[in-house]
């Protein structure tokens, strides 16, 4: 069933990508989920958006609080704080919006761990389950 979900995600991403390219070519409107912005420079992966990003957890919060990656990418969280953090997907308690974030989980000070692969174009909120009011941020998963 996990594989089915992954396949579904890839199909959905591919369909959204095709729709975005087709609509851009014909000058029509672009679906909200596939809206892209021009990055300052192309990534080395050949995709417009990077396939990896790093979020550093500090006493002041996540740095940066928002990252953009391409579909198929991962985000690595590094705990540079002096206390543990548990990074999970929104919403608080159910953590179901973006399951790849939940693979980060519990990080002791100094520990780092990547998310699972993001396979769906989506805006993903994350928070610290140990202190959901202190750490929160966003991962925008886009496609090009």
């Amino acid at each position, binding site marked *: *069933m*996990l594989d089915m*979900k992954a396949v579904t995600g890839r199909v959905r991403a591919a369909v959204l990508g095709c729709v975005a390219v087709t609509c851009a070519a014909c000058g029509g409107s672009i679906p909200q989920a596939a809206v892209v912005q021009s990055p300052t420079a192309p990534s080395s992966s050949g995709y417009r958006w990077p396939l990896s990003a790093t979020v550093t957890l500090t006493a002041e919060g996540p740095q940066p609080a928002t990252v953009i990656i391409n579909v198929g990418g991962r985000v690595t969280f590094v705990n540079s704080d002096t206390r*543990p953090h*548990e990074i*999970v*997907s929104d919403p608080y*308690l*159910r*953590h*179901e919006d973006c*399951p790849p974030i*939940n*693979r*980060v*989980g*519990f990080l*002791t000070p100094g*520990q780092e*761990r990547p998310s699972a692969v993001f396979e769906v174009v989506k805006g993903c909120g994350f928070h610290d*389950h*140990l202190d959901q009011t202190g750490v929160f941020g966003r991962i925008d998963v886009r496609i090009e």
Partner: protein
Amino acid sequence: MLSASASARVSAQQTQAQPEAPEVHEHVDVAGTLLTPTTDFSGTAWLPKATPMLGLHRSWREWDLRLDGTVFVQFLYEPGDRHRTGGAANHQLVSPNWVMAMARRRVGAGRFGLRTMLSAEPWTVSDCGALNYLAVGEVCDNDTIHDREQPHDLVMELAADYDGPLKGEWRWQAYAGLAGEPAFGPTAYPHRPSASINPIAPISHHWLDATHIAFGVVTAGVHNQRVKAEASLFNGRSPDEQRTNLDLGAFDSASARLSVLPTDRLSLQLSVAHMRNPRAMFEGLPNAMVTSISASGTYVRTFGPGTSWSSTAALGFSTGREIVSGIPFDSTNGATLIETSMTIADRHTVFGRAELAAIPAHHLHAFEFGGENLTAGKLEGGYVRQFSIGKGLSPGVGGTAGISLLPPELAPRYSGSVAPSFSIFFILRPTRHAM
């Protein structure tokens, strides 16, 4: 009633004639079956016949009445910085408690019984449950409960039963309840003589006897004095977080249990259950069927009035649909338990428990491990000193100490691979009664 009394006297004489036999409290005998057998404590499960019977026991007109219960007032302390459902406090004052009333009388050639079991834990166990490292199960605050034992519902049992003759020594039995216990697992831990004086719930509870509160159950079976085969249809969903109502539902789960009493001191059971949506977290996931298997044995030996030793060994597995972060998958997990309790002269009780569980990581909120099981253990021991104040009640004071043994994956969450737990408590419960 005269014949019943005569039968009871004959029973008593037989017991006196066999000094080696375990202490068995014989009650009113009706057509070959006791109105309140010492085997009956929890649903239709069997304990050994030698189990000491606690509680107030009276006759009223045609009825045989029994009242049993336990009230703990307990201070729990689990040092560490573990974040858990219901808050991160490492100490808590709770009162686990329950009271059970049973009334039985002759009807036709058999016996008819009414029984209820109530708990005030919805009001006396706060913050989603009592601190208990590695305990998992049920929901609270829209989250799955972990590292706490959830409060029991106000109505734990509201049931009726009938036991009638079939052929020869064989009898048939029917049990039905708006709240009750299907034919699965060992006698529930609050009633097991090896566990009943320990206020800490076993972490294996949700593999072994978590079905002891099912909101809607019917059971039918046949038995003689040594063997019972029974089957249940029931509502398999575990109670929700609204603890004061009856969470009635479709009878879409089934179970079967074979119980054997090889001797008066030993009870064995093997059971299987096929349950639909047993965990509330499966909300919206159709056909979430879980199959559970349980095997257990309980041994009770008495050494004279007030002195007894009881032990239970149990094993349980569950396999079925789990869901992590909205993604369903198949999972097999389980737990095993060994527990023992020794009471001396109705005054001193020492008890211990060892458990090993393969717990789905997400049950402990360790989502980074996806659908993996994490193997953890727990060792626990305690002592209770009871006093006699007459009037059938026995207060006592006691304490427990335990350690949770954690795998490397979980150790950082519990501030180390060994997480200690402590408690001190007051207990009030009925005295053992001799008939």
